């Protein structure tokens, strides 16, 4: 079973994040860039499937040159090789254009299964796996909390707010994963050293046969017009009980439309 894991480099959600005021895209230069957290679960699941069924795990990343760090991290966990799609013209690409590029990149190799984190912590759109499945004409088993592989048959427990569904599909397929799926491993020291010699193929738009006019900020289907930082937390309201505490609390809750 050859597996491709979609991996995205994102600004660390635990640190200060902002947009770049020159073009309203995610500010990457100033951020502490890390592997998208949900993708680590997808990598772990891919490694588990590989350990059980054999095959190769390939990391696919679209991002600037600095995304190399994230690719190395994924390789150090145990993935076999990586494809890095990078081109200055890709800056500011919307999710639709990005899915077109990734679909082209997936066309350059043989695979049975694509695993992807269910969402990124920067864009947070959750649309990529579905867009790719549509473009590639393969099954999309979304929001997995459990994946079972039996030959070409895939069984997924699809997590929802109210419980889970069991859904089945056939390879080739795309499975998106939640963080309830497994416990991602740490890279080992040996894995870190081995990652340096694992093959990383770099592909440009020209390599993929994509015209620059189809991607980037200019071709984006949605545009961020303006942004503002979240207002600082204001002080809470203190209710003093002078015999009417309950009524005051009820009024407060009603004013906030909780009751």
């Amino acid at each position: 079973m050859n597996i491709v894991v979609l991996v995205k480099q994102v600004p660390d959600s635990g640190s200060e994040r902002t947009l770049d005021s020159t073009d309203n895209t995610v500010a990457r230069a100033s951020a502490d860039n890390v592997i998208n957290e949900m993708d680590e679960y997808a990598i772990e699941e891919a490694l588990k499937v590989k350990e059980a069924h054999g095959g190769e795990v390939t990391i696919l990343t679209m991002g600037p040159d600095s995304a190399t760090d994230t690719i190395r991290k994924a390789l150090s966990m145990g993935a076999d090789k990586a494809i890095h799609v990078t081109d200055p013209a890709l800056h500011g690409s919307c999710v639709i254009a990005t899915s077109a590029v990734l679909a082209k990149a997936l066309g350059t190799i043989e695979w049975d299964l694509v695993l992807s984190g269910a969402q990124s912590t920067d864009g947070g759109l959750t649309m990529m796996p579905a867009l790719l499945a549509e473009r590639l004409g393969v099954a999309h088993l979304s929001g997995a909390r459990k994946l079972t592989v039996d030959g070409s048959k895939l069984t997924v427990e699809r997590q929802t707010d109210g419980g889970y569904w069991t859904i089945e599909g056939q390879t080739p397929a795309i499975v998106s994963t939640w963080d309830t799926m497994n416990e991602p491993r740490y890279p080992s020291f040996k894995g870190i050293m081995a990652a340096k010699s694992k093959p990383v193929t770099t592909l440009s738009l020209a390599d993929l046969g994509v015209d620059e006019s189809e991607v980037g900020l200019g071709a984006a289907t949605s545009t961020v017009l303006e942004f503002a930082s979240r207002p600082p937390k204001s002080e809470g309201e203190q209710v003093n009980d002078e015999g009417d505490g309950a009524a005051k609390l009820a009024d407060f809750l009603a004013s906030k439309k909780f009751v």
Partner: protein
Amino acid sequence: MPVSRTLPSDDARALLDLTVDLADRELRPRVSADEKAARFPRDVFATLGRSGLLGLPYPEEFGGGAQTYEVYLQVVEELAAAWLAVGLGVSVHTLSAFPVASFGTDQQKQEFLPGMVGGELLGAYCLSETVSGSDAAALVTSAVRAGDDYRIRGTKAWVTHGGVADYYNVFLRTGGSGAGGISTVLVDAATPGITPQPPEHKMGMSSSPTSQIVFDDAVVSTSRLLGEEGQGFRIALAALDGGRLGIAACAVGLAQAALDYAVAYAQERKQFGQAILDFQGLSFMLTDMATQVAAARALYLDAARRRDAGQPYGPQAAMAKLFATDMVMRVTIDAVQVLGGAGYVEDHPAERWMREAKVLQIVEGTNQVQRLVIARSLSGRRAATSGPRLSHST
């Protein structure tokens, strides 16, 4: 704030990054609760083992990390900064492979080292006894040959990882009195006749069990003898030189943690309308702490580089252990002082660190023994590896 380090390679940098990541995500969130509950974190050691951190200074052919002491000790320092019992445990475990690696036969290395350095097993030392601590050559636990076996009788004391280790390096008497009658035998913890006693109730490091181990006619094959009969004391002293560097690294890590915490607190805490850090009297305490930490780090790294270069380093290791552990005692006491009342309560880690620091002045040779070792090197009586009972050594 991350410690700024000079490291010899990108590999070493990646290893330290991995260590800090593990410390932040696997150690720091639970150290306080596990210390309070006196709960040994065996699973943390399993995680460290899978990541390759339990055999760093050993050859790759046996599953080790092939790292220098200079790098390995900085890993120990980072772990100790997050959780002293884990940093010290890694030092003890790493050392527990030393007798096989340095004195074992090729066959013993093939048989035992992969398990020891591969991260699956946890090791320990049985050197001290209730009546022989600093005077290690006076130990009385005995091994009597019976055919191809040793029959071991006696009680070992102060065994770090006692009861949780998978194997013990046991220093015991196979010959006459004195250092020349001591041998080292590698013993599986599951051997019948071995009974770990309940853990001691310690002042600190409660998560790391320290116990007596009773050997009551435990039968072990003579193929488990490491080195030759009578070589045990030399093995113990050579191991202690390395162990002292591990303790020095632990002390620096713990002191760095206390310093960082005190600085952060002093920046936040306001009195008389300003951060207490801006009072010179207090900031000078912190500057002295920072200088002491940096000096201790430089001292243990110098000794480590000597070891890595194949030079004698025994006295330098003793100096590093002496200076670093006295330093961490002062620094953790001062950290409590910087926090004031907050330093004295369990809501903050400062009081725990102060309790933990004390043991470092005692283990792997008390600081009085370190001075003995250093004094002998000054008078030229014995340079490289020396211990308190030189008159007995061969």
